[in-house]
């Protein structure tokens, strides 16, 4: 069934058991909404020098946006900023691929669980759900940087 390509086990798992959910102390906070569906997220980043010490978040949304935030937390926390940006770029590329991109080994290595979102990229209306937390993270990071809270 085509639906299974969107709702991969990994995604449903993250949705049911989200990683790092809840708001904790951070250097910067942003609030993003997806106006087409009303999904919302409040997200905080905490940096320890160049290292992402924490990404905490709270929000409401569908399985895809919730799972995506959970995967983001799992993938990015503990990484260097430069590496995190690579991951974000790869995720963006995957999500904008309209289902045309078959993740190769290199991509799988970078994205880990996040490759499960490949199937979502076939559904334009859901791509925004998957990207919500990633856009929020990017924005929060820019804010933290500009406020000089990190190196």
């Amino acid at each position, binding site marked *: *069934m085509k639906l299974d390509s969107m709702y991969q086990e990994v995604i449903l798992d993250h949705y049911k058991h989200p990683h790092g959910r809840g708001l904790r102390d951070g250097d910067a906070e942003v609030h993003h909404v997806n106006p087409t*569906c009303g*999904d919302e997220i409040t997200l905080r980043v905490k940096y320890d020098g160049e290292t992402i010490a924490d990404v905490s978040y709270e929000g409401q*949304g569908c399985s895809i946006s919730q799972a995506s935030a959970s995967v983001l937390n799992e993938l990015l926390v503990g990484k260097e900023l430069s590496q995190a940006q690579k991951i974000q770029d790869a995720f963006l590329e995957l999500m904008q691929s309209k289902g045309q991109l078959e993740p190769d080994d290199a991509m799988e290595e970078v994205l880990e669980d996040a490759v499960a979102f490949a199937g979502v990229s076939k559904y334009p209306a859901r791509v925004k759900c998957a990207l919500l937390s990633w856009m929020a993270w990017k924005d929060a990071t820019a804010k933290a940087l500009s406020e000089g809270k990190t190196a």
Partner: protein
Amino acid sequence: MTDARQGLSGLLDTEAIRKDFPLLDRTVHDGKKVVYLDSAATSQKPRQVLDALNTYYERHNANVHRGVYTIAEEATALYEGARDKVAAFINAPSRDEVIFTKNASESLNLVANMLGWADEPYRVDRDTEIVTTEMEHHSNIVPWQLLAQRTGAKLKWFGITDDGRLDLSNIDEIITEKTKIVSFTLVSNILGTVNPVEQIIRRAQQVGALVCIDASQAAPHMVLDVQALQADFVAFTGHKMVGPTGIGVLWGRQELLEDLPPFLGGGEMIETVSMHSSTYAPAPHKFEAGTPPIAQAVGLGAAVDYLTSIGMERIHSHEKAITEYALKRLLEVPDLRIIGPTTAEDRGAAISFTLGDIHPHDVGQVLDEQGIAVRVGHHCARPVCLRYGIPATTRASFYLYSTPAEVDALVDGLEHVRNFFG
């Protein structure tokens, strides 16, 4: 299932009607017939309307009002003929009270802007108040917020009760001597509620406020009689009433349209123009700047003919029967909570609900896989979601072509959704 369906009376001959709507034959996802339950967002179009569009473009297309040649005369007659049809459809006292816009949103913005630029006694300014409700479509909220911001007027609103009705308990505090305009929806697009027009109008008339009714979800589904309503303005939109996209209507009382200032300026709406100053044509032309949506008006005329040929009362009965049946069946679904009135009393054919903790996005996605098209989200009525503390709803909405079998398909589909996320 069959038992429940047997009790249904007042249904239309949907087998015949559905033949008029080409899209209802569509299949998706490897041959699944579309079950279209999103008519509150936009309706499907019968071939009678598409034929009218094609005939217009293939035989009578010309710009209107300014031509002496045959085709231009024909185009003008078709365009103005559509105005006659719409006027008759809503029982307008005069055809000149029917203004064609691009959609209901423009119609509502037009009212807000006319009042913002008007002279006394209509003028909305810092000493006055605007009243709307918490169950409005964003198109009947944002124009008033903009007007309030730009004039300094105060925006007030009626709240909603737990069972999805307007809370009019404090009507005398909300609508006061300061109120210049009360704008509310006749039928809620998210809750389905049909609102008590009379009570609101009576109070508005007491204080001398104008009343604007958003009939976007009413015009397609029931007899709309602007004289019986007693409002000052009534707005609705073509694409929800089997007409084309790109056309809306504002009906307004003649004296008001004469007194109020224009909104958009340009070709067609003038009487005479010099570089120093201009004068304006009488309504409705005063409010129709530029080349109007000619083909779309013609299409809306055909839509109105189509609906009338079936009969608005019969359409209303059909939808009432379907809605009753759908409410009954949906309430059988475990964990399903209806957002809005749970009986068919004073209720339109849009039913919003939540299904346990499953996010509407996910509900809609799994339904789509079965060919079932419902809308998910806040339905441009986010304050309602805030009011009920929910992020969004799933909404099924019915129209003259909807069948009990489609309700059954929805209920089966929801079972599948529950299993999928179970």
